[in-house]
């Protein structure tokens, strides 16, 4: 059964579309990432699922029930916002117990559940602190606890880690992943950080220009973006124009076999790490104009004869800026998209 199901959801703000024809199925207990740049409508989509916004058209189902017009109180879908929105006038334990008290649970049950939850988030001694006395990571954990203690069927995370520093972000990601595998809620994580999306989720939905362009596992998305738009959004790819003729894709990187009908003006892409460099053999000569060492790998920017810049990533160290190298790309690494519609 689908945990969350969106059917043709559209949202207009003052006549302008913020979301166009979004259809998405998230399975029960699945961890999905919603990846997109800021302003792509990710937060609006979460608010529609949680019941804070009404869609202009379309339907929202949670666990098979049509909740499109149900108020937020009756949905069991909780957003944890980036700014954590802890109630500033309540202590940690009052914040965490808020939902249970609103449900009218017995005092004993509330106390037990809150204590157990504070143990899970490893803040048992902070029960009587106020939010302003907590650090950023602690606040975020309390916000998660406040939602999770209700055992919601749907947890929606709106960029919950982007205000945290790098180390804290890493440990919070692990913490949320562990919490998910323990509590098994259906989860949508909104993020603009593709690494975060890949790391944490079972599937990634790419939201660009108010549309859902691709939904796939992180591996599939990384290997094969469905369109040029998704490929260029994910980045770390060389994009080069060319044409298809007689079963070959002709571009500045040479002729690469492909099985497409003849077509003028298409676009090929390949990942930076799929360009191999050699000082002796290879089809395309180029000159290294920039070398950037980043520890595990080195990034080279290579200028080709026609002035085009290609980026290559390798663990080799032998080249220097100014060196002449030969480039080669494996045929199956190159994805080809029609230039006009952007699809492959």
């Amino acid at each position, binding site marked *: 059964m689908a945990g969350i199901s969106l059917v043709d959801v559209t949202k207009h703000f003052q006549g302008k579309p913020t979301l166009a024809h979004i259809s998405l199925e998230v399975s029960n207990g699945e961890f999905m990432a919603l990846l997109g740049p800021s302003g792509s409508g990710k937060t609006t989509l979460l608010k529609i699922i949680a019941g804070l916004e009404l869609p202009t058209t379309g339907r929202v189902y949670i666990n098979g029930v049509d909740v499109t017009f149900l108020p937020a109180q009756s949905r069991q879908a909780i957003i944890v916002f980036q700014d954590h929105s802890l109630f500033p*006038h309540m202590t940690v334990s009052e914040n965490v117990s808020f939902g249970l008290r609103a449900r009218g649970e017995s005092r004993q049950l509330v106390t037990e559940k809150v204590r157990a939850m504070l143990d899970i988030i490893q803040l048992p001694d902070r029960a009587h602190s106020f939010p302003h006395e907590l650090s950023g990571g602690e606040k975020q954990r309390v916000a998660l606890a406040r939602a999770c203690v209700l055992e919601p069927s749907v947890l929606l995370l709106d960029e919950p880690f982007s205000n945290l520093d790098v180390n804290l972000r890493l440990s919070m990601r692990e913490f949320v992943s562990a919490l998910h595998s323990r509590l098994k809620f259906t989860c949508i994580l909104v993020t603009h950080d593709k690494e975060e999306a890949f790391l944490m989720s079972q599937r990634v939905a790419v939201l660009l220009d108010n549309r859902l362009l691709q939904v796939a596992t992180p591996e599939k998305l990384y290997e094969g973006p469905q369109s040029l738009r998704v490929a260029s959004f994910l980045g770390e790819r060389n994009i080069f124009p060319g044409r298809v003729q007689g079963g070959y894709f002709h571009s500045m990187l040479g002729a690469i076999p492909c099985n497409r009908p003849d077509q003028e003006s298409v676009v090929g892409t390949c990942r930076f790490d799929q360009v191999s460099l050699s000082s002796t053999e290879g089809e395309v000569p180029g000159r290294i104009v920039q070398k950037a060492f980043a520890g595990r790998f080195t990034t080279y920017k290579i200028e080709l004869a026609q002035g085009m810049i290609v980026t290559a990533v390798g663990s080799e160290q032998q080249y220097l800026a100014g060196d002449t190298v030969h480039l080669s790309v494996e045929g199956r690494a190159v994805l080809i998209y029609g230039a006009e519609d952007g699809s492959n």
Partner: protein
Amino acid sequence: MPGGKLMRLVVQCALLVVAVPIVSLLMQAISLQWPFPSLLPPVVSIDHAVALLWNNPRLLGAVTASLAIALMTTAFTLLLAFPAAKALGVYKFPGSEAIKLFTLLPIMVPTATVTMGLHSAMIRTGLAGTFLGVAIVHTVFALPYALRILMHVFELVGERHEQQAAMLGAHGGRVFCTITLPLVMPGALSAATMSFIISFSQYITTFMIGGGRIITLPLYLVPHVQGGEWHVASVYSLVFVVTTLAALTLMQYLVRRYYRETYFLSP
């Protein structure tokens, strides 16, 4: 440190500005006469002031009327200002900016003009000369201030906490009492204080709508000022200051205590 010296000077000047009128009021109150060239009153006695205050049912009536009307005004003002301030402070809708400006109209137009118009309406509805009528007219003049204050507070607070509470399963009344009210309480307290003081110091509106039947403290006080009875006017003015301060302090104390006990200190 020159900065510290300057700061001390500013504070001293500020204290002087507050203290001089109060002290001169006090001296007026205990002097039977204070002819022009003397720096200090020649004859000082507290007896007359005590006599004015003691066993004076008309003064007591005026104080009670003032307090009752001010409390009614504060209640009406907050009841009206709360929803309006939330709507204007939190939601954006076509015309909201214009409405924000229009809410200031009662205090942009001369008081007498507004009151004159309201007076005829009050006569028709039978509210002229009643406590309720006077409180309603005071509300008209307190509302713009209270609305402004609450609106800015709502702009700051927004609705994210209310939305969060709703997602956690709390319904309207609970969200209002446990989230909205405590969050905007500092602003609500300021708005209440403002409304109370505005109502307490109304003269012309009380005079016109009350039609001489409703005697509040300013109505009781002003004839003595106009009649040149400085001594009597000073004693009543002190009553005015003390009553206002006492009422406002009590209000703040009660609200603070309630919210600290319920939300700030509970385990």
